[in-house]
């Protein structure tokens, strides 16, 4: 048994109340011709990270529409995940010299997974580079395969990309989070935004009492300004840079900094980065470094809702769903202009963008000085997410792609 079970039921009517009946009627109409046709989604981790989170919410929604989508998680040893983590960083542009052994490890686990996964549905969607070579299992003209790349491929390490590109070229289509992430490929490339679920524990409304209890648990003072970055402890999220920006802001405003994140099983680097962050935070009692469990949605939700400003100071980013989460909660966001973030934060319209530690600090100071502007940005950000980055829109894009494949696009 390889299928990853997702059991939570999400009644469509609850989305209709939030988004309007028309949006749900569109979904029903698009799903109708796809009923009874099988879809497989394959990724490399069942918990932690944006992909697993999206799939956890996408599948119950698909169930409500009577669609048959199965989610399979590929298996791999520590050696495989070390190689794919290096691939991941290298594809984001980090220096890396892959060895022949690295490629052998990658291929060997993909071959093992080919023999254990069904891979025979009408539509097969492969997420990210880890399972990209599963395409070798494809039987000619048998089904449609799509590769969903959640990584910023604008400046990839050539050695790693040259290795992966021939696999990608065998798919029927590929999906990227931003046009600048796409590569020149002989297959269609589609723009696919990641998405958040407004009804999930991470994003639904919370009571004030619950939020207060979470703040009390982590000794965060609700009466003082709270700056927050939620993300894995990963160098590409630049948590140390966030602390440096906070220190500049602190010269002008009394504030606290919350750095909260968790690890994922496919990220062996997290513990090392966490130590670096603790060292940088030193003994400042106003910096709260919270190593949350991989799945702590209610606490993340509470921390975001309690924040005065949410920061996402990534150096590289696939998309940065934490930005959408904050915008959905109408929070003013200061974020780096990297990866998919400018798609979410339209500068001066739905948030503020920055390009450095100093710039991040300046934009935070600006918003703390102008709470009326901060509120307006948060409101526009909420609308932007509602239109573009919700799970219902994401499912709609998948349905559209499957229908487009069937129609010969």
């Amino acid at each position, binding site marked *: 048994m390889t299928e990853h079970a997702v059991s939570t039921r999400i009644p469509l009517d609850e989305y209709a109340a939030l988004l309007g009946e028309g949006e749900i009627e*569109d979904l029903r109409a698009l799903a109708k011709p796809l009923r009874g046709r099988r879809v497989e989604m394959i990724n490399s981790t069942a918990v932690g990270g944006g992909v697993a989170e999206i799939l956890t919410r996408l599948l119950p929604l698909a169930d409500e529409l009577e669609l048959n989508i199965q989610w399979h998680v590929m298996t791999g040893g520590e050696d495989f995940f070390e190689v794919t983590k290096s691939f991941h960083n290298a594809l984001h542009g980090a220096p890396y010299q892959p060895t022949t052994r690295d490629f052998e490890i990658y291929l060997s686990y993909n071959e093992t997974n080919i023999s254990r996964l069904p891979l025979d549905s009408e539509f097969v969607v492969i997420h990210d580079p880890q399972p990209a070579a599963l395409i070798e299992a494809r039987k000619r003209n048998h089904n449609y395969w799509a590769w969903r790349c959640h990584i910023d491929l604008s400046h990839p390490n050539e050695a790693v990309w040259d290795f992966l590109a021939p696999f990608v070229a065998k798919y029927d289509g590929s999906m990227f989070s931003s046009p600048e992430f796409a590569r020149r490929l002989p297959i269609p490339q589609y723009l696919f935004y990641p998405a958040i679920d407004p009804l999930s524990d991470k994003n639904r409304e919370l009571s004030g009492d619950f939020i207060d209890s979470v703040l009390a648990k982590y000794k965060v003072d609700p009466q003082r300004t709270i700056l927050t970055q939620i993300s894995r402890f990963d160098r590409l999220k630049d948590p140390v840079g966030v602390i440096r920006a906070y220190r500049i802001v602190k010269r002008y405003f009394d504030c606290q900094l919350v750095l909260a994140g968790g690890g994922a099983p496919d990220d062996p680097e997290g513990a090392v980065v966490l130590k670096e962050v603790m060292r940088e935070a030193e003994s400042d009692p106003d910096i709260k470094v919270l190593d949350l469990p991989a799945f702590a949605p209610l606490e993340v939700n509470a921390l975001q809702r309690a924040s005065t400003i949410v920061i996402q100071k990534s150096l590289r980013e696939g998309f940065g769903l934490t930005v959408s989460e904050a915008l959905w909660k109408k929070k003013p966001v200061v974020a780096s202009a990297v990866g998919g973030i400018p798609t979410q934060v339209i500068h001066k319209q739905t948030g503020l963008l920055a390009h450095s530690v100093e710039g991040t600090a300046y934009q935070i100071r600006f918003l703390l000085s102008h709470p009326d502007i901060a509120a307006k940005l948060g409101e526009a950000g909420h609308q932007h997410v509602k*239109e573009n980055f919700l799970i219902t829109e994401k499912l709609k894009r998948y349905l559209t792609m499957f229908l487009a494949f069937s129609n010969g696009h």
Partner: protein
Amino acid sequence: MERATTPFEFYAVSYLTRIGNQSAETIGELLDGLRQCSDGSIFHHTFQTLGTHHFLTENFSNDFAQWAMADANRNDLAEQLASLDIRDYVSIAVLRHDLCRIVSDFCEASPELAGQAALERFYFCEGVEVTIPLGLQANTLEEFREGIELLSHAGFYFHFISSRLRLQLQTNDFSYWLAGALGLKTLAEAVNRIDIYTNTLDSTRARILRLIDRERRPS
């Protein structure tokens, strides 16, 4: 209640954005791209953006103008590009010609600016449209009002904005049906006059519903 000669058929619509292999770093390259890109790409960056960013009415509604302002830092060119009103066009070829003329004039007048690198590249994309009947028809003004109220943003955009190219007329699905099937020409014209550039899709819809309500009110 007056029954229509033919029913109005409401559609569910979804768009997939296909990323092209063309991009531009300078205004000169934008001109090259405008000349070479597909009709679908011109459509995507002019008509479709009215649907995707409709709630930010302070922004320029076409991508070319927005890029000229935000990334190439040429407000003069941006204003020229934004001044093209898609309601005047029933052909992509004519719209492309006018876009090219504006950018070409700029490049000729300021060749030194035409070669300057913008902050971010412009990526040419195009939309893949999938439509499916919602299974909802209107035979009367009352049913038509209910249908409009129910439509998603994408469906509303499809019937009110992108329909102009499909119909090859300077009108939209709603006005076309109101005038043709119900004989309500004044209402059809009033609906067609709504400024889609300074309204959001929601406020446009609200205006149409108000116009219909006024029509239904006994005189």
